[in-house]
């Protein structure tokens, strides 16, 4: 098991020439006192500050004029880490191994190497994975007195450099769920899914556009070139011209038939007017009677006229019937021609509408060919898009396959959930409401008097889960500041303290609390008890003098132009 623990801490106020020095042991360390404001929290905050995190110092604490030196034991290798402002010096033994004023790109990288523990989180800007600053390494290992108990994992400043949803993924590193590769896969999967969704939207938009264009194109004359277009337009024009000719012929025929009908009615009216008594006169006895001497034909008495008049008499109805018959025939033809006329008119209007002969042929060709080209282009784009989607889908499938094989996350989270439940029950803070709401990355907020228990229970569960799987990941010191805040009950305080000291799986626990002995009844034989009893007087001149040489040496490094590029603080 990889482990890190802190051994010494030096805080030097370079202006007031005062310093504080504390030593820590592996295992349980308690920084206690009977009074408040003795510097317990300051010591704990200074530890984390030396490591490159940003902590909530008291407003009275002038951090910028102080030098912090932390001695770290990493797998039995001693490192000295010094911080002055945002400048860091790292010594391995006595050898200076790192000089940096860059927390993320310098210090974090080096510490990650030393700890063999890397936390990569996706950048807020471009979602690319980057090595997270030390705060995220120590996120589950520090509970700040003020900020750490309300909402879990809020003990440091400047955590919002990453999205909230991404920040707590650092826990997966502590639990061995994530390493750089798996996170990269996960992020790649998320990226691909995002891109896939974008392409899906694009596809839908393209399809709508293509549909509309297709409708437009279908209304145009299908032609691949100007000659063909001309031919098509000619055909449509011919049809219209034929319709016009046909209309003209029909009009003439209708007029002809109307005239005929009129004439017939006129003739019929004439016939009607002829008097019935239009008969030849009787032979006047005085009239000379001429007869053919051979056949006796009476020339005077015109037999023809006699017969004609008799014929006329008897045939009046017959004549009307014949004229009526003719008129009916003409009327039927007239109706047919009128119907044809209307049909032809409608057809011509349709032809005109579809193929407007007034359109400029060239413009027609251009718009038609332009639309076609655009339609072709969109179709090609769609094909390409579909191909890209297919590719992304395949990649996603591959990633999912890989992640399924690596994915022990659910199992680990289940174990974590069980430990949380167990801790909640043990601390008597269980609520049925929690049953489906225990999530590693969405810790339960503490409320009221049970806040600290709820928070500690979940931290404890996390460590127990690490221990459960005997994970190889680096374990760091658990620094807990004032867990009994908000606790009114002695029993609860005891329970809380007990939880902390159950964490034997950790290499080191540094607990800051007042009246430790009062609330912990267990064996403290191996505990390193640091008692502070001078309120507002953590630093002193004596300690500064004792460590002056070190302080000066380090300050010489910090002020070196050669090391820090001429930038003086």
């Amino acid at each position, binding site marked *: 098991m990889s482990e890190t623990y802190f051994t010494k801490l030096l805080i030097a106020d370079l202006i007031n020439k005062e310093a504080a020095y504390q030593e820590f042991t592996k295992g349980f360390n308690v920084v206690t006192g009977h009074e408040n404001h003795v510097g317990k929290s300051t010591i704990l905050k200074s530890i984390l500050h030396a490591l490159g995190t940003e902590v909530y110092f008291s407003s009275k604490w002038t951090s910028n004029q102080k030098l912090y030196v932390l001695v770290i034991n990493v797998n039995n290798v001693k490192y000295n880490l010094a911080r002055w402002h945002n400048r860091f010096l790292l010594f391995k033994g006595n050898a200076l191994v790192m000089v940096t004023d860059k927390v993320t790109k310098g210090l974090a990288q080096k510490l990650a190497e030393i700890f063999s523990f890397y936390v990569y989180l996706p950048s807020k800007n471009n979602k690319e994975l980057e090595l997270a600053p030390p705060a995220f390494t120590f996120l589950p290992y520090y509970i700040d007195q003020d900020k750490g108990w309300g909402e879990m994992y809020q003990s440091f400043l400047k955590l919002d450099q990453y999205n909230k949803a991404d920040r707590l993924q650092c826990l997966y590193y502590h639990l061995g769920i994530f390493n750089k590769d798996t996170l990269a896969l996960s992020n790649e999967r998320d990226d691909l899914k995002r891109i896939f969704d974008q392409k899906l939207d694009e596809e839908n938009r393209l399809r709508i556009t293509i549909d509309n264009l297709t409708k437009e194109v279908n209304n145009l004359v299908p032609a691949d070139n100007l000659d063909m277009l001309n031919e098509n337009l000619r055909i449509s024009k011919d049809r219209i011209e034929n319709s016009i000719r046909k209309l003209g012929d029909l009009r003439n025929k209708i007029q002809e038939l109307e005239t005929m009908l009129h004439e017939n009615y006129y003739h019929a009216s004439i016939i009607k007017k002829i008097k019935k008594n239009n008969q030849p006169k009787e032979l006047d006895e005085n009239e000379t009677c001429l007869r053919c001497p051979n056949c*006796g034909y009476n020339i005077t008495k015109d037999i023809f006229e006699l017969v004609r008049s008799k014929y006329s*008499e008897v045939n009046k109805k017959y004549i009307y019937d014949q004229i009526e018959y003719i008129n009916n025939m003409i009327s039927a033809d007239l109706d047919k021609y009128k119907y044809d006329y209307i049909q032809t008119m409608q057809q011509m209007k349709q032809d005109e509408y579809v193929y407007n002969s007034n359109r400029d042929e060239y413009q027609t060709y251009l718009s038609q060919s332009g639309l076609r080209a655009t339609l072709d282009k969109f179709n090609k784009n769609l094909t390409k898009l579909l191909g890209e989607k297919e590719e992304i889908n395949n990649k996603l499938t591959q990633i999912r396959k890989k992640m399924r094989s690596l994915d022990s996350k659910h199992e680990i989270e289940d174990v974590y959930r069980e430990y949380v439940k167990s801790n909640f029950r043990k601390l008597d803070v269980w609520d049925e409401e929690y049953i489906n709401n225990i999530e590693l990355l969405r810790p339960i907020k503490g409320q009221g008097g049970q806040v600290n228990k709820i928070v500690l229970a979940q931290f404890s569960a996390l460590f127990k889960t690490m221990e459960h799987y005997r994970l190889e990941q680096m374990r760091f010191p658990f620094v807990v500041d004032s867990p009994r805040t908000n606790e009114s009950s002695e029993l609860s305080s005891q329970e809380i303290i007990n939880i902390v000291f159950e964490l034997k799986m950790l290499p080191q626990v540094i607990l800051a609390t007042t009246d430790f002995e009062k609330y912990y009844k267990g064996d403290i034989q191996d505990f390193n008890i640091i008692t502070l009893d001078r309120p507002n007087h953590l630093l002193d001149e004596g300690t500064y003098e004792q460590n002056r040489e070190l302080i000066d040496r380090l300050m010489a490094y910090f002020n070196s132009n050669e090391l820090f590029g001429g930038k003086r603080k």
Partner: protein
Amino acid sequence: MAKDIIKVTGTKSLTKKSSGKKQVKIDKTSGAMAYNRLDMQVSQALYMAIELYDSLDYIFVMDHYDDITIFDVSKKPYAVSYYQMKTHKKSISISTVLSQDWFAKLYAHLQQKEWIIKELGLITNCQLDVDFKVIDTKGKQKKQHKSYDKDRTAFTGMPQDVVDRIKKDISTKLEIPIEEVDLTKFVHMHTELSIGRHREIAEGTLSEFLYKKNSTITVETVKAIFDSMFRLLSDRQKYEGLGEDCEFDSVVKYKGVYKSEFTKIMADALLISMPPVRDVVNAAQCITKEEENKLCMAYVRVLEDQQSKPKAYKIIVLKVKEAIDTLQIKVDEPISDYALRICRFVYSSNNNYSYLYGPDYIKVMIICIILNGVSHRV
């Protein structure tokens, strides 16, 4: 003869009582009856004219020599038949015939020597009843009755008693020795014409006659022919300008109707008869609807001209007839081509005709004439 009619039918219409009071009756019916019987005579004459048309060249003389006189003029000297027409609702008895001097009047015609007497006929619309006596086997005289209603019954074929009575009557009235009385020419003819329907029956007979000659003849044409013939005969019958002793030529001129006149009537009727327009259109074999319509228009114009412009119509139709007679249609010649030939002929006779009567007009006339059977393809 008119007086005879009055005598026969109206003897009791106006009476004077020899003594005392005079009773005057107003005759309301005899005028109409007289008219109808005159018409019936005309119908009978027409009927007989149709019957004899195919066998005889005749002249009918109405109401002069007798009621109806028929001259056979096919050869000279002419043969003549005289007919008296008597009508009664039920029957006429031989006694009435004798008492009315009908036989005597008919027999009087035998005294003329100019023509050969062919027949002396008593035409009745009812049966002739004869009562006669016969001696049976036991030698007893018995009275018997017989009615004669056949088309034609010779009087000489009647019972001897009847024959004797007739001879005696004629002998007495005409003061001729009884043994010289010759009844061989005398016939009784029971006509099928009735008082109420004589025209219809005569027209029906004419219709049958005409239909046999020309199966395409229309009802209207038959009617026109009948009316024309009837009118002609009526006019002849009505003429009263002749004296009793006027010359035969004058009689024939004013009171006669020649067979040729009947022939002319029939021919003219067929000439001007217009078949139904659909028959004309079918015969024209029009290719396009336009041609058909133009032909129908021409048909109507012909009808109108026939009615409203008879003189002009007569001229053109006779001209077309003349053209048809001159340029007869050939067997396979299309109507349109034939019409063009006729048009050229017609227009050549008068320049104005081409403006007045277009080719379609002429074509309609040609088709009507051909359809009526007046002309045939040769």
